[in-house]
């Protein structure tokens, strides 16, 4: 796992104790996702990676796994870089 994935895993481990969460593992299928995780996950992603989660990003597929979240962060940071002035 790269650094982004490790940070995401460390955060999610709080919610999936005793389970070695794998990068592609579907966290919704594990059945522990509730509104506490939902809002904290958004705040974590925004604060940790400096991205903004917008209304269009409300898609379970963006948050389904460590890999999905890392990909989402990469897309958001890439998109931000593209629109930044040179």
């Amino acid at each position, binding site marked *: 796992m790269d650094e982004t994935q490790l940070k995401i895993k460390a*955060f999610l481990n*709080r*919610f999936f*104790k005793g389970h070695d969460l794998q990068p592609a593992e579907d966290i919704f299928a594990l059945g522990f996702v*509730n*509104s*506490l995780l*939902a*809002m*904290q*996950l*958004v*705040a*974590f992603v*925004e*604060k940790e990676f400096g991205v903004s989660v917008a*209304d269009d990003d*409300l*898609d*379970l597929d963006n948050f389904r796994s460590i890999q999905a979240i890392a990909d989402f962060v990469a897309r958001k940071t890439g998109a931000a870089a593209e629109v930044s002035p040179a």
Partner: protein
Amino acid sequence: MKLELSAEQRTARAEFRAFTAAEIAPHAGRWDREEAIPPSLIDRLRETGYLGSNVSPEHGGRGRDMIVYGLLTEEIAKGCSSVRSLLTVHDMVAHAIQRWGSREQKERYLPRMARGEVLGALALSEPNAGSDAKSIETTAADGGDCWLLDGRKKWTTFGQIAGLFLVFAQAAGKPAAFLVERETPGLAVQPLKGITGTRASMLAEIELRGCRVPKESLVGRVGFAISHIAAAALEQGRYSVAWGSVGIAQACLDACRTYAAERRQFGVPLADHQLIRRLLTDMIVDVRAARLLCLRAGWLRDAGDPGAFMETMAAKYFASRVAVRAANDAVQIHGANGCSEDYPVGRYLRDAKVMEIIEGSTQIQQITLPLFEFQEF
């Protein structure tokens, strides 16, 4: 670590305090009896920028930091919890739009909400769905080029005068949130009277019958209304209610300090009786502890820290219970006078009880808070 307000924050608090003392506190008892706050007071809240003060400057608001926002809430609540509840619900809706609204929704509503031109109200609770928000029965049917809302909302704070409702409904079994303007055909408002506390909060029942709203009135996406849109609004509401509870408790302390010094029984002021001092001691310490929890929650919210959710809930849980204890003891200290409308403490007690119920009841928080704690270990 520095546990003190900045000069700017102290100045802001002094302004809020003076406003409340001059324009709210002297009239709060009458508004409570009349079960309404007057349009003139709402005009003053617009002029002062106290409504929607959490809206970012980008959208025409003041973007107050969470500490100043909390101080505003506490000071207003010291004067009148119903006025505080106007700020609470209006700012909850503004916060939800700011957090999850589309660019068009933000441009359409936030500047007007920041100016107080349109008042927001949260239409979540129903006759059969309170704490169990996922069980709401209001439906949203896909009408092709629109959504059709049907159902009944209850306990909608300031629903009597709100211009914009954040309505929650089930869209094909999934929760969805909509911004519904008051003038929308099919939306009817019925005032609710005779509420125990925050009686001037102008509660209403909202009936939605074939209420046709544009597709673009959907906030966020279908399926995320409870977990994200309501959660964001309620988190803002909990923060406001926590500070509002501190305001009630501080008002109780202020009232008791004056009364215990002036009222004489058995030849000495009440304050010289040790059992009265014991009640005052609990009140003094409780108010300070509750305020510190609120300050910590505000600091974390400003920092965008994920831990803000738990700290805000903890602050609301503690402060609302403190408000009830303080108000209960305040009535006790005032004796028969406390049971009369000649003194405000009876109103404080009725208002405080509401704080333990709204934005997550004490029992819901007793179920939820340990879950946060388990995360950390």
